[in-house]
């Protein structure tokens, strides 16, 4: 890998904290989230030639992470249902996951959203992407993104207002 390869590595390193944050909004478990980030880094480096000069590295990486998450969807769903009753025990043993109740509360709420709504919320509310950028990452028209975002938000709001925090 030449100097452009080095640039890409630097850029990925810069973006790792954001990729981890995004992954944490998709996967509740911090280990799973970091697995997604690691897969993203591996795939990005293996496919560096697919990154066009006019393309935003951030959008490209978030797109790879999103695809990795979708790819894992089936087995993830199976696993999440298996782990469901054990969540509390798992968190007892995982200080990284259990330190912030507010974060856990939001992760739980996000986890109950359908995948596409969860993605829209994670990209726009968690990551602060514009609708246009988020739509491009999800490979959908902006109108589709906004309707998923609106539905996701509404569901989230009603889940969270049950436990207070957001005025209703």
């Amino acid at each position, binding site marked *: 890998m030449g100097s452009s390869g080095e640039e890409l590595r630097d850029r990925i390193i810069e973006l790792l904290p954001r990729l981890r944050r995004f992954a944490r909004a998709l996967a509740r478990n911090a280990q799973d989230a970091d697995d997604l980030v690691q897969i993203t880094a591996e795939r990005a480096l293996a496919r560096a030639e697919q990154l066009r000069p006019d393309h935003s590295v951030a959008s490209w990486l978030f797109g790879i992470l999103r695809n990795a998450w979708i790819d894992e969807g089936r087995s993830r769903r199976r696993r999440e249902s298996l782990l469901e009753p054990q969540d509390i025990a798992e968190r007892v*043993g995982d200080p990284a996951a259990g330190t912030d109740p507010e974060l856990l509360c939001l992760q739980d709420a996000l986890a109950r959203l359908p995948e596409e709504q969860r993605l829209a919320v994670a990209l726009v509310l968690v990551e602060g992407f514009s609708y246009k950028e988020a739509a491009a990452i999800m490979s959908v028209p902006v109108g589709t993104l906004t309707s998923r975002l609106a539905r996701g938000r509404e569901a989230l709001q009603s889940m969270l207002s049950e436990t207070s*925090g957001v005025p209703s």
Partner: protein
Amino acid sequence: MTFPDEVLMAYADDELDARTRAAVEAAMASDPEIAHRIAQHKALRGRVHSAFNKVLGEPVPARILTVVRGEPAGPRKDNVVPLRRRPARQWTWPQWTAIAASLIVGVIGGRLSLVRSRGTVPIALRGGQVMAAGALAAALSDRLAADQPADDPVRIGVSFRSKSGEYCRTFTVRQPAALGGLACHAADGWQVGVLARAESAGVEPGAYRQAASPMPPAVIAAVSGQIAGEPLDAQAEAAARGRHWQP
């Protein structure tokens, strides 16, 4: 003037063009309901954003940096045992699923590394179950808590009958990391139901009584959840061993 909720949401997200924005602002001024709805959208956005922002302050795990930097996965320089961090993604999700189903607590990455490092940690994957192997299996089957070699890396803790009837025993392992776990006797050996990392200094070589070992809270919690009655006393433990742990 009324607006669909998506427009109010887009206003809160600063996604409207100047003209629509001005129209929404005019409506906000005269209609408290619109203003309230926008405030809700903004509050939710702010709440979600600030909760997840905390992740940005966390250190990035070394295993990810290693991948990005293209460094060979050599021995770790820090003194963190490679328990919670898989050196690379070697297990597929379905395998993961099978294992996750049989285990209760965290350190999943560690468990998998442990399972993979054959010979070093005495557990093995059989038929989707994590089973005790080697020295651990031998200690679980043969050893009495009151009669253990002082410096053995495997140490047996309490033994008890579980609510479903089988015999279970807690144990600690000192190498390659301080771990505590719970294994229950099954038809084909000892099934490890919980394995978690023991905090701090690890198991002292001279630690004799179970209380002296840093049993992870997850193991203690699992014991309290599964135990039927009291732990076995020395006599009951010896009797159970005599029956080869058959209920």
